[in-house]
């Protein structure tokens, strides 16, 4: 490839008024360093191609050179919007591989943190998605509430964004004094704030016009492309790993899996909004049922995995997030593969923006809810 054409995946077409528009990697609506190359006819988008890798750090290779426990903080940097969900998947995968027992109390607290993560992640998605479509004020409201969740993370684990909040075998510490009260205060406040968001957007006519019928993906296409998370649930498939392959204590909890049939941006919006509601239900149940006991199980000083392989996935806020670990019997994994939902969901971008206008591309990218840390790894 010549220097002048690096990344120019699309050639300009024959038609007059047909041009190539380079969106990103520095663009306010690509949520990080995604580069999308669009072929447009005026405002109509004809074709698109995405260029990723601007945030590639070689996470999978890094994992091969670190002991199992020491890779946990690296997982924070995968999906940095939902770092605890990444931590959870990794520590669970390690525990299964190393056959470690996790105490009950730790499991409950893990679910509490994981659902708070879902709230924080969906809040950030809602704020940025609304901002992409032009509703600026909601962005600040969402950040106000997300701040409360981050404060809870800080209270428990000491960090706000790259949390490193779980340990292989349990938790780093028990709940600090007063943490549960703070959590309950948040749980009491949040439903009213959630209904405020609904008031601002759900029946707003401009919002409906901008999201209904945009970025449609059918259930069959979802399966073909391997999509997961709110994307597939917005197209009518009730796939949620919390229900399908329950981990931690999700099999004991009572919650619904919201789905919508339309498969458009608005359907995915409704799904995520309802997921926040369900997360609140889960959080309340966990707080009520929280048992007492130790917060970390027996973990040997030197962790040596038996020879074998394992794939473990959880339902991160963005979809099925999984680690495939191949162990050759050493203290370090021989190979780690990360199944990142953002990466797989992003592949369907050309399908989602069929017949879209330029403004719809922004709405669609927002509705996929990508995090580039996870796409590029």
């Amino acid at each position: 490839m010549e220097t002048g054409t690096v990344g120019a995946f699309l050639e300009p077409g024959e038609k007059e008024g047909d041009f190539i528009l380079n969106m990103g990697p520095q663009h306010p609506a690509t949520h990080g360093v995604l580069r999308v190359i669009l072929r447009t006819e005026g405002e109509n988008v004809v074709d698109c191609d995405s260029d990723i890798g601007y945030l590639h750090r070689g996470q999978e290779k890094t994992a091969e050179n670190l002991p199992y426990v020491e890779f946990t903080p690296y997982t924070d940097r995968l999906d940095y919007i939902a770092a605890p969900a990444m931590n959870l998947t990794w520590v669970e995968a390690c525990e299964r591989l190393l056959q470690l027992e996790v105490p009950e109390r730790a499991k409950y607290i893990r679910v509490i943190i994981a659902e708070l993560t879902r709230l924080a992640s969906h809040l950030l998605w809602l704020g940025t998605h609304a901002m992409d479509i032009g509703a600026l004020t909601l962005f600040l409201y969402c950040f106000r509430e997300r701040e409360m969740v981050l404060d809870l993370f800080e209270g428990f684990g000491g960090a706000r964004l790259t949390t490193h909040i779980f340990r292989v075998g349990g938790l780093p510490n028990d709940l600090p004094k007063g943490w549960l009260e703070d959590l309950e205060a948040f749980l009491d406040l949040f439903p009213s704030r959630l209904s405020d968001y609904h008031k601002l957007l759900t029946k707003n006519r401009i919002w409906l016009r901008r999201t209904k019928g945009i970025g449609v993906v059918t259930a069959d296409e979802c399966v073909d492309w391997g999509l997961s998370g709110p994307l597939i649930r917005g197209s009518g498939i009730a796939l949620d790993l919390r229900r399908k392959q329950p981990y931690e204590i999700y099999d004991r909890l009572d919650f619904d899996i919201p789905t919508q049939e339309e498969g458009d941006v608005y359907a995915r919006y409704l799904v995520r909004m309802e997921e926040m509601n369900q997360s609140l239900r889960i959080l309340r149940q966990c707080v009520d049922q929280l048992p007492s006991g130790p917060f970390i199980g027996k973990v040997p000083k030197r962790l040596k995995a038996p020879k074998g392989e394992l794939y473990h996935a959880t339902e991160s806020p963005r979809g099925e997030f999984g680690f495939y670990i191949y162990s050759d019997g050493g203290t370090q994994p021989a190979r780690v593969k990360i199944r990142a939902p953002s990466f797989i969901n992003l592949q369907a971008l050309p399908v989602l923006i069929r017949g879209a206008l330029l403004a719809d591309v922004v709405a669609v990218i927002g509705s996929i809810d990508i995090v580039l840390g996870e796409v590029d790894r």
Partner: protein
Amino acid sequence: MLDLLIVLGKIAILVGCLLGGAAFLTWVERKQSAAMQDRIGPNRADIFGFTLWGLFHPIADGIKMLVKEDLRPRFADPYIFPIAPLLAFFPAMVAFAVIPWGGTLKFGAEPDLLLIPLQLADLNVGILFIFAVASISVYGVILGGWSSANKWSLLGGMRGASQMLSYEVSMGLSAMGIFMIYETMSLAKIAQAQGDLFFGFIPAWGIVLQPAAFVLFMVAAIAETKRVPFDLPESESELIAGYFLEYSGMKFGLFFMGEFIEIIVAGSIITTLFLGSYQIPYLGPEGLQIPGLELWAMGPNFIAILQCMAFLVKTAAMVFLLQSIRWTLPRFRYDQLMKLGWKVLFPLAIANLLVTAILCLLLT
């Protein structure tokens, strides 16, 4: 000589008010959005420790724009690129020349009676002049977008041009009802006519006579000033900044100031046409005459100053309303915007015009 001095004085007042007002509006916008978004807003710029609720921020911004490096992209057109901001800025300023902002000041007695109407120029084409001048600012948008040699700017310029042209049509048509009713295009005469009363107690304001036109004009005015939900030419999440993407320093400052001046002008046109201009209900040339009560006599200059303040208050209220919409609504899509302009506002404006015309014919 005296006439010239008076005109120069008025120009100085207007330019000062517009530039100062635009700078003030940047502060208003930031504080208003902060209040609506549960934030504090600008409060850090200080002089000797006095922050004055962040009021020094506009000054700091002005200094920043003046001293910032003025970049011109390599492929930008060397002649058109610097002209475009001027074309966007000055029409907005000039449009204010025909807007009356108060009654008449009276000094001395006959025969040296000196009358100073508080309006720069009472053109008999009045509002047409505003439309004519405002349409020049489209050139600023489209030339700025084109000469920057940036695809995003170009898209912004195209969007801006087509949007402003489409909405100017409905804007003009909705204002036409006002001319029919007051039978004049001179803004001074329209302002005077709105001092009358219907049935002895309802002020003959444009909003009373033309409520539909008021709503249409409002919507079109928001589209003209390129603000949310019609901010497509500069929508930051799609086109980054649209037509002024490549501008920096004071050139950007001119676009920026021009936009705020446009808001002031839009607010004052709405005030002039629909909200009784500078008229205060029941305040006649002799003083306050509330029906059923005795006349409260006032001097002519005192009345003129009161009227001036009334104009200021009404315009400020309109500007505040125009600004607050920005923090409330999402943005339209390009095709939806065009549909709204041509398929909704345009037919409604024509229908309003037709009804007004028939009523005018029947009543006279």
